[in-house]
């Protein structure tokens, strides 16, 4: 069953199509990789799903309910959480306070008492192994920890679908291993469906059940990771036409 589905989704910035008639869907429980060269429209697609930008054309359905046109906060409360490519923490707050924002205002947050919300936050902080930095302020922790904090905040929102925008970017290889293990756990233990934008191919190949490729806003391929790396269009998009021709 598709939890999230986009039909002919388009976004124009002026005359420039950032996302051009893209059909996509996310199966319940899968990890879908979203790759493509810089400027392909990957982040824009996430911004469309989360309601940050209005669609120019097309429709988006979440659990069979039309969600395009809704406000970002409404969409977030329905159970779609995200992390940002450039981490956007709340710098004036501690790690614990950052995460509690998710459990206070995410899905089911209103019914939660503040006390319970803090307990929830602590649980997610432990889940991403940040318990030693619970009361640290955000500017005291490094990028790897901030990314994990962002992830904990997203998890605290009890999402059905979680969209990760380049969580591996800027991490060293040890941190990437840890992050991959964490993402796998999130998918298997918590049964959360994931959409993962990623440039680190090791992570894409290791994590994703299925990969979708965008180029100039258009979907050029959709298949298993193994199929994708052999796809001529994809090689052309990433490495250039000449390389693709020479290969043949």
């Amino acid at each position, binding site marked *: 069953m598709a939890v999230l589905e986009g039909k002919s989704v388009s976004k124009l910035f002026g005359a420039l199509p950032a996302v051009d008639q893209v059909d996509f869907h996310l199966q319940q429980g899968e990890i879908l990789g979203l790759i493509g060269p810089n400027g392909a429209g990957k982040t824009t697609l996430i911004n469309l799903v*989360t309601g*940050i930008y209005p669609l120019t054309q097309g429709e988006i359905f979440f659990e069979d309910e039309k969600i395009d046109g809704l*406000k*970002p*906060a409404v969409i*977030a*409360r329905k159970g779609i*959480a*995200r992390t*940002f490519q450039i981490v*956007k*923490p*709340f*710098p*004036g*707050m501690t790690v614990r*306070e950052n995460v*509690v*924002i*998710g459990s*206070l*205002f*995410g*899905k089911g*947050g*209103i019914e939660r*008492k*503040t*006390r319970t*919300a*803090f307990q929830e936050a602590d649980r997610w902080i432990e889940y991403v192994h940040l318990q030693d930095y619970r009361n640290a302020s955000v500017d005291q922790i490094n990028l790897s920890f901030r990314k994990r904090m962002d992830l904990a*905040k997203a998890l605290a*929102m009890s999402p059905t679908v979680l969209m990760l925008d380049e969580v591996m970017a800027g991490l060293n290889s040890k941190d990437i291993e840890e992050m991959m293990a964490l993402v796998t756990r999130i998918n298997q233990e918590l049964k959360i469906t994931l959409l993962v934008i990623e440039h680190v191919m090791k992570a894409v190949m290791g994590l994703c059940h299925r990969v979708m490729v965008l180029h100039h806003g258009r979907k050029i391929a959709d298949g298993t990771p193994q199929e994708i790396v052999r796809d001529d269009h994809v090689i052309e998009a990433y490495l250039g036409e000449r390389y693709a021709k020479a290969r043949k």
Partner: protein
Amino acid sequence: MFIDHWQLTIEKWLLFLFEGADIEVKKNRLIIGIIIGLGFMALPLFIEGYWIRVASSIFMYAIITGALNIIAGFAGYAAFGNIVFFGIGAYTTAMLMLRVGFPWWSGVMVGGVLAAIFAVLVGLPILRLRGHYFAIATLGINRAVEQIALDWGRFTGGGKGITLPLPQMEIQNFYAMIYFIMFGLLLLTILANFLIARGRLGYALRAIRDNEDAAEASGIFAPTCKVIAWTISAFLTGLTGGVFAYWFSFIEPATAFDIMIAVKAFVMMMLGGAGTVFGPILGAFLLELISETVWGQFLTLHMLILGIIVVGVVIFIPRGILELFRKKISLASLIRNVRNQSI
């Protein structure tokens, strides 16, 4: 049935917004608070005349600063024109007392409510603006409302101002009464700040201040939260304006909408610590007390010193005096603040 539904909804929202995270107050702090409170209650027994008025004026600034802190300190929206609510409160009280014959206290209440309603109506469109644009819009609104008071002379007295009915009581008693009213409003302001800081609304506002996009992506209804914050701020400021009008028995547009009051409140807020419960109150006490006692003597130097304090606070203690108590004060930390500024 319909009313029941609305009551439930509003109740749910109020519980939702103010429900505290850690309402357990530390015992010794509570005792210190009560002692200070009782001290202020007993103060009129020991001082009179001029000093009672100085104390009332300090309270008034502390309320305006505390109210400003809700929108500017917690939510990070620099409402420079917040003084418009002060003016609305003052003029509503004056008009209701003079033209309708309301007793002063009901005039003050209506003034507070009108200021709050005005904040909702104006806030819905302009709280969508961010940063400097919002600050400028509030200045424009303050100016526009002041102009209405100026031009509607037949009703408001125009630029010449207007005299309110004088209180029918001994002047010393009157000043003591104003003292206690201002003190009560100050307690209300502190309570509002405390509940917001510890409750859900406070977390929402601070998230909005730190990063509004990320806040919305986390499920925070940013427009609603901002409007609620500004409405509370406006209500408190409006009440204070009403009491001010009754206290001075004379208001004119230039004092009721005086932008310098708002600027001073900003300095006080930043001096004490924006976004904290007691910081802005402390800042107001310090600055107003010093300005009444010391610099009041040097009229022109006064503004110069105020300017120096603004620059000094922004450079050396951007998080305010309270921060100095929390961390160890050291030259190194002050220099670090300066260095962080230049980035």
